[in-house]
């Protein structure tokens, strides 16, 4: 029997890996990848919980919304990354420190 806890644990693992990617990776695309991982973990949770809501299908529907949003964010994010790259000739966020004090 696959319980909810199984999903949650897996999703926690994926989320933490995504978190790590976002913080640690020195490549903007990889950061995007990390974000996608975290979104996927979230979607997994949505879907897992959605199993117990047959009346509204809310889990699956919001999972779909999230997928769409993720896609949009990736599109925009990539566009930004391309611009950044054009501008700084690098996609290593460590080298882009305009926010620095």
């Amino acid at each position, binding site marked *: 029997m696959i319980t909810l806890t199984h999903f949650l644990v897996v999703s926690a693992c994926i989320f933490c890996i995504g978190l790590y990617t976002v*913080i640690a990776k020195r490549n903007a695309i990889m*950061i995007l990848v990390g974000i996608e991982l975290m979104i996927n973990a979230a979607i997994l949770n949505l879907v897992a919980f959605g199993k117990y809501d047959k009346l509204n299908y809310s889990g699956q529907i919001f999972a779909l919304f999230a997928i769409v949003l993720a896609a949009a964010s990736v599109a925009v994010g990539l566009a930004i990354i391309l611009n950044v790259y054009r501008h700084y000739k690098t996609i290593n966020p*460590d080298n*882009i*420190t*305009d*926010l*620095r*004090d």
Partner: protein
Amino acid sequence: MNSLLTISPIGASILVVLLPLLAFIIQAVLGKKSTSGIWSLAAISISTLLSGIFVFAQVWNGTALQVDYSWFTIGEKTFNVGILLNNLTVLMQFIVCIIALPVHIYSKAYMKGDAGIHRYWMYLSLFCFAMLGLTISKNLLLMYIFWELVGFASYLLIGFWYTKESAVQANKKAFLMNRIGDLGFLIGIAILFNTFGTLDIVDILGKDGLLYQGIVDQNSGLMTAAGICFFLGAMAKSAQFPLHLWLPDAMEGPTSVSSLIHAATMVAAGVFLLSSIFPLFNGTVLLIIAIIGTITAVTAAIFALAQYDIKKVLAFSTISQLGYMMVAVGIGAWDAGMFHLATHAFFKCLLFLSAGALIHEMAHLKAHNNGDFDPQDLRNMGGLRQYMPKTFVLMTVASLALAGFPLTSGFLSKDAIVISAFEWAMQKGGVHLLIPILLVLVSILTAFYIGRLIFKAFFGKLRVSNLEAPALHEAPKTMLLPMAFLAVCSLFFVFSFNPFSYANSGILNGLAVQYSFTEIHALHTIIPITLTLTALLSWWLGYNWYVKGTYPLQANSSWMRFAQNQFGMNEWMEKTFVAPTLLLGKASYWFDKYLVDGLVNGASYVIRKISEIITWIDKHIVDGIVNAVAQLAYELGNAFRFVQNGRLQNYLGFTLTAVLIGIIYLILR
């Protein structure tokens, strides 16, 4: 205006004074364009005429006239400009005019060709203005003004050749010594103003003057002080011992100036002043005047014996004669003093003019031969009688008058003084007799030194060697004529028709002074005879010594040199007054610079140092605390600064860390 048109004595006298002023102004405006002196000459001529005809003749032995114009008001006191015409003032004014005129004429020839001749005429007119004004002033303040102006004109004329160092030293000395007297005069004025509230001579000293109204005790210390102060003024102007030092030096001026200012008129102003305010003096002051006069007469006569400079001899002679006049004032016979003043003015002026003629010729001789000798030195002269016979005659007349030889004016006036002095001394008795005896001695000395001058200058041979004597010739007519005029005036008949008795002289009768002593008839015969005989004796001696060449004394003996140096008084003065004053000046400047100013600068230094200390405290302690706080904040900030490194991921990491910590906190709570 009216008074001027009708030529009242007052108007005329004002005109007499103002004409030279006008000449002075015209000359000043024209400057170098006018060298002829015509303006000055015209002014003094008209002045003399006016003074003689419209003033002297009108007022002499007539009623005294006076007029006042309001000048200015200070507080409640009004000061007037007044003119007083009485016998004394018109006489003085007339004397000044009558002396000034020949001198002007003489100067025309004497000063011819001098580069500064325009200044000469200007100064001379200024002097005449001041001197004439002085004579008729009714107000002491006004008199003081003219008194100082006279000194100023004298200053200018002494320093006429201002490139000559000795001349400018002399005029400075003259002015400063006169200033001492002037201060006495000023203090005297202050005392009178303080006592009487007015400075009007008539108001104070007139018949019913304030002096007699018991405002102040005549013998009080204040009045004595006033008398001494005025006498101090007169001392300086009339070159009385010890303030006489300026007069011999003043001979640096042109000789014509010396004759007018430093022999005849200005120096006599002191006597005139004392005569004008005579009632002011009490017994003490008069005695002081007499004593000082005697000392002056004696010392100056001694100094005159040893001088070689012809003008210096005459200068000391002037001082000595002024001493006589002072004695006359001091014994109360100021009319005799004025009489002597009048006669002395003529013959001394003549002596100077003659000396001027000699110097003129000697200077010509020097210039002609490119010689190197002092044209004024008696030792260089001699035998001039052959070349300048007329000058010789004129000068001899003047010398006789100076020596008091009968038939001359000097005989009359000198006798008047000496006899009066004897009478006064007899009255007082005792030590007072010393004064007339000394006067007799001076009279003998006078005869001797003037004889010495004549013998040295005119007899024997010209002592300047290797020169062609014929370059010498008689003085020009323009010079001789005024001299002749003065010579005539040096004879007895101008003053009295009786050549042997001064009692009938017009001046004495006109001034009519009430003597305090009784007349002793015997003296009136004894003294003139004694004086004449001793004078003759001294001339005989002098002739033997100087002409025959049997000079018995060491010419360079220390006594002679001592007398020539005026007993070293100049040096003594220099050492006692001038040097210490200058030293005091230097000391006070040192004090000012290093102590007073040093104190100020020191204070500023101290304040600067204190402020530096405070600045240090402020910078390192007060501000230090503030800075330490700021530093701490900075260091803290710097410590956490790496947070703000611009790396998105780090931001995110920190945010998440914070969230994580928050969550853990919530869990553990």
